């Protein structure tokens, strides 16, 4: 490892470290514009110049272009280097429009900082300035090309790092232009990162334009809860309004970037329609009055029908505190539940995944970037967890192979191999490939059950499936790789897949490979939900009990029943039937609107909270601001109203866990730290993994990965003999309900800006099925479901399985008319709607 001296201090760094990075390890920040740790060096801006005094290079050189070598002595403060950098800055400012006062980057602009620290204040250049015409890039990013210093960060991020192809660099010399071929909405779902990485104000955050300077904001680290990855963010609020989110660096989770769903998904928090008062039968009441009403009614019900007539339903987007508190109250009161899932099969799959994430197998998102073979089964990264796609792209860029086994028309921003097989074939194809890659002896070494498991998997030859050759070639590659990772979804896959994926990972590991397992889960805190959810009861039995009148009251925390349930009519009926529906939420959901008693609760930004991401990483989101109605909303744009009163207007919402405690007539702990400590103590009694968590204010930035969280259960237990292989449906298509990047996630749909980038919802089917039905892309079709017709346009695709029809749970589709799942859509139920 080379030893290098920078500014008279010595440091040893790994071979290949650039001098600019070696300096950083000594806490010396050499100026930079084009260099970015995630994007690498290009030597375009020349502002990182330092003086090489001893060693293989001499004189003023670019510290981002030179690897640290033994014997190097470098000075960053040398007069010649300082002067050089000063001229570079002056030169980069030649064409700058000097519009910092009206630029949204002003105040957190690297160019501004460098200009000031370089001492450039007086303009000497008298020539005319180069000017550009800006482009419309969509609702998320504002373009102002005149501020550009040609560092190429944007085009490198957009094309090389993220793999999208509609923004880049055009022209030459003094005309170099960064943008699109023509005006239009940027196609990538990672565009917000442009605003983060551009060192000047060319790309700025459009939704927060002209709202404030960074120092005006209440800024705090936060977490993204728009999918299960738990990316790190910085949230900013001003005048009681959440206005902006940026990516926050995380070594283990998201690196430097986040996706647009996460970045712009926060608008629910300051939404105009956000309910801020407690309601009883639709009438606004004081918080304590609502608590009293609920307690009274619950006591009545409990008295007359027994405590089990009260059921509780928690959610995957609730913090661990809220989930745990609800469970505690339920136990103390002998109420039914709480349930954490509305779909029992999903609950079981997620539980299996949680149990099978053994230490030694789990990989983080950043570790996944190191994989040389990624096999994704039943996962659609761009749509289900966008940042996963970006991590997979990094693996692929550095030579890794990516294979996806999934029936959906999968798009990824890089080359990959897609085996578009039907859902019930996913297990088979995964196993065929692993079996072809793993020797019998290796499997035998893992014990008799592994040997038997291996034995029962059909071989490629006997299985005689389509795509046989492709699988054989891929298996060969898999054999030769060192760091394979299996990515496994939990939503669309068959019941058996999560366990099977773990078994196959064990087989690969036995081949002396550094093997990883990475599950996707449906919500931000699904992992927490699965740790807490008990074995008793499912949502469908709860529904039946309500219908039979056995359950009379339902308490729902932070969940919209209608959002992900396929039978709207049934829900409406059971809500009618209930004596009492209590809803706690921070959005005005359909369920909230139908509640008898409603409690407004704090959002993540006001309450903070603990969330466990899909790899079992426990992370803490601190509070960002105190909450309250945004001044803009209650002032009508003018001075805030002069209303006499104490407290912040609109700040009635409180953390959901507190409301839960009070509903259960418990004593509120004196402060939150005590609350967390006691909750954790109680959690640890139930599950020892919680015992070793640090106190809430001492959590490391990247959280704490839980140890083995649940009993692993039996490995290698899938029995291929009895595995049913449903034959092809000759008279219909299997319906698959899916997520999309935009338009299907419960919180981000409140963002008016994301609504503009949403695609129009469409149904997808394979070309062969479309031909059979006489349909083509763009046709408007209607499906007759048991609850009514659903109309949407059709996308015909070659890159998906035949025999299936894919439908997004999109806010603009009334898919809740489906009624029963699983569902085969018979051909005669699909018809073309003439326009």
């Amino acid at each position, binding site marked *: 490892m080379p030893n290098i001296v920078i500014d008279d201090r010595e440091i040893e760094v790994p071979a290949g470290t650039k001098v600019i990075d070696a300096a950083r390890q000594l806490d010396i920040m050499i100026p930079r514009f084009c260099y970015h740790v995630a994007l690498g060096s290009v030597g375009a801006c020349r502002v990182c110049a330092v003086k090489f005094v001893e060693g293989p290079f001499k004189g003023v050189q670019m510290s981002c272009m030179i690897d640290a070598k033994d014997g190097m002595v470098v000075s960053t403060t040398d007069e010649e280097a300082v002067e050089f950098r000063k001229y570079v800055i002056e030169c980069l400012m030649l064409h700058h429009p000097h519009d910092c006062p009206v630029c949204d980057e002003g105040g957190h602009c690297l160019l501004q900082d460098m200009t000031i620290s370089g001492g450039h204040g007086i303009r000497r250049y008298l020539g005319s300035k180069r000017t550009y015409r800006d482009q419309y890039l969509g609702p998320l990013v504002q373009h102002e090309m005149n501020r550009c210093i040609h560092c190429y960060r944007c085009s490198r991020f957009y094309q090389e790092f993220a793999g999208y*192809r*509609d*923004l*880049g*660099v*055009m*022209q*030459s010399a003094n005309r170099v232009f960064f943008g*699109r*071929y*023509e005006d239009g909405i940027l196609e990538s779902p990672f565009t917000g990162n442009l605003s983060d990485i551009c060192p000047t104000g060319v790309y700025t955050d459009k939704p927060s334009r002209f709202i404030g300077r960074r120092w005006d904001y209440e800024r705090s680290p936060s977490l993204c809860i728009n999918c299960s990855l738990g990316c790190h963010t910085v949230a900013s609020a001003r005048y009681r309004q959440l206005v902006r989110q940026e990516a926050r660096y995380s070594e283990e989770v998201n690196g430097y970037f986040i996706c647009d769903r996460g970045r712009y998904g926060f608008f629910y928090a300051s939404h105009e329609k956000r309910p801020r008062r407690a309601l009883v039968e639709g009438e606004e009441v004081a918080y304590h009055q609502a608590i009293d009403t609920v307690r009274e009614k619950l006591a009545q019900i409990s008295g007359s029908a027994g405590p089990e007539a009260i059921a509780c339903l928690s959610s995957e987007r609730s913090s661990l505190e809220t989930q745990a508190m609800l469970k505690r109250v339920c136990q103390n009161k002998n109420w039914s539940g709480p349930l954490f899932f509305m779909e029992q099969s999903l609950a079981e799959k997620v539980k299996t995944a949680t149990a099978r994430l053994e230490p030694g197998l789990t990989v983080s998102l950043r570790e996944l970037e190191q994989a040389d073979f990624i096999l994704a089964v039943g996962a659609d990264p761009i749509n289900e967890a966008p940042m996963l796609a970006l991590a997979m792209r990094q693996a692929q860029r550095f030579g890794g192979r990516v294979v996806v086994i999934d029936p959906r028309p999968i798009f990824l921003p890089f080359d990959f191999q897609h085996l578009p097989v039907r859902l019930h074939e996913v297990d088979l194809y995964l196993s065929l490939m692993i079996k072809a890659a793993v020797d019998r002896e290796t499997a035998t070494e893992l014990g008799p059950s592994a040997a038997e498991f291996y034995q029962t998997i059909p071989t490629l030859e006997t299985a005689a499936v389509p795509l046989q050759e492709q699988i054989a070639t891929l298996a060969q590659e898999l054999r030769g790789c060192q760091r394979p990772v299996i990515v496994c979804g939990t939503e669309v896959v068959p019941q058996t897949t999560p366990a099977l994926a773990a078994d196959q990972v064990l087989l690969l590991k036995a081949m002396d490979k550094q093997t990883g397992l990475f599950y996707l889960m449906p919500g931000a805190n699904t992992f927490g939900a699965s740790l807490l959810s008990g074995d008793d009861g499912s949502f469908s039995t709860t529904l039946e009990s309500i219908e039979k009148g056995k359950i009379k009251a339902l308490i729902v925390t932070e969940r919209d029943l209608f959002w992900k349930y396929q039978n709207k009519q049934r829900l409406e009926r059971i809500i009618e039937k209930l004596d009492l529906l209590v809803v706690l939420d921070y959005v005005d959901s359909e369920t909230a609107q139908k509640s008898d008693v409603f409690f407004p609760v704090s959002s993540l930004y006001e309450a903070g909270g603990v969330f466990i991401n899909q790899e079992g990483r426990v992370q803490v989101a601190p509070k960002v601001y105190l909450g309250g109605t945004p001044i803009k909303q209650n002032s009508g744009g003018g001075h805030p109203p002069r209303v006499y009163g104490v407290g912040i207007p609109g700040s009635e919402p409180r953390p959901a866990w507190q409301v839960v405690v009070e509903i259960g007539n418990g004593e509120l702990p004196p402060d939150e730290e005590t609350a967390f400590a006691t909750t954790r103590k109680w959690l640890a009694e139930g599950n020892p993994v919680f015992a070793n968590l640090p106190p809430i204010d001492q959590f490391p930035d990247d959280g704490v990965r839980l140890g083995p969280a649940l009993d692993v259960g039996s490995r290698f237990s899938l029995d291929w003999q009895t595995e049913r292989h449903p034959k092809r449906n000759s008279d219909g298509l299997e319906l698959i309900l899916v997520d999309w990047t935009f338009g299907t996630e419960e919180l981000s749909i409140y963002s008016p800006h994301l609504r503009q980038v949403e695609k129009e919802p469409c149904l997808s089917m394979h070309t062969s099925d479309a031909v059979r039905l006489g349909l083509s892309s763009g046709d408007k079709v209607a499906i007759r479901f048991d609850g009514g017709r659903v109309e949407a346009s059709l996308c015909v695709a070659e890159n998906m399985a035949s025999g299936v029809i894919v439908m997004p749970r999109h806010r603009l589709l009334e898919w809740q008319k489906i009624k029963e799942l699983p569902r085969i859509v018979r051909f005669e139920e699909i018809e073309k709607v003439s326009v």
Partner: protein
Amino acid sequence: MLPTELRASLAEQIASVDHPRELLVDVMFAVQDHYGYLSDQAVEEVADLLGMTPLEVEELATFYTFVYRHRVGKYVIHVCDSVICWMDGHESLVEHLERKLEIKMGETTPDGLFTLLPVCCIGYCDRAPAILINKKVYGPLTPEKIDEILAKLQGEA
């Protein structure tokens, strides 16, 4: 729209290579020869043929001197704009051309015959000062020789 034949022959060439992208310059030239310059429509057609995005084509088209994104004259005169030619009378050469054709660098004569453009070193330093006219090199040049060449081209047009 490109004629079907040209389209087909380009598609065939593209199909015969492993990385279609490597043919981008050739395809742009072929399409430019057809239209006379690379119009927006041409950029989109090239992109479509090669499975690239219009942006990716534009990145190269606007970088490369010999791809014309605007209408040009029948004869495109590229005047070498590099050190050796500078030493050997580039400036007076440009002046002469501009005066003679009554246009500035970057412009086209109203009759659509000549377009004047700079080009960085074309490698004919031994014949400085040099120019290219429709890819043919002329040099070393004097005002008289230029007049001769222009007259000849005007006669041929």
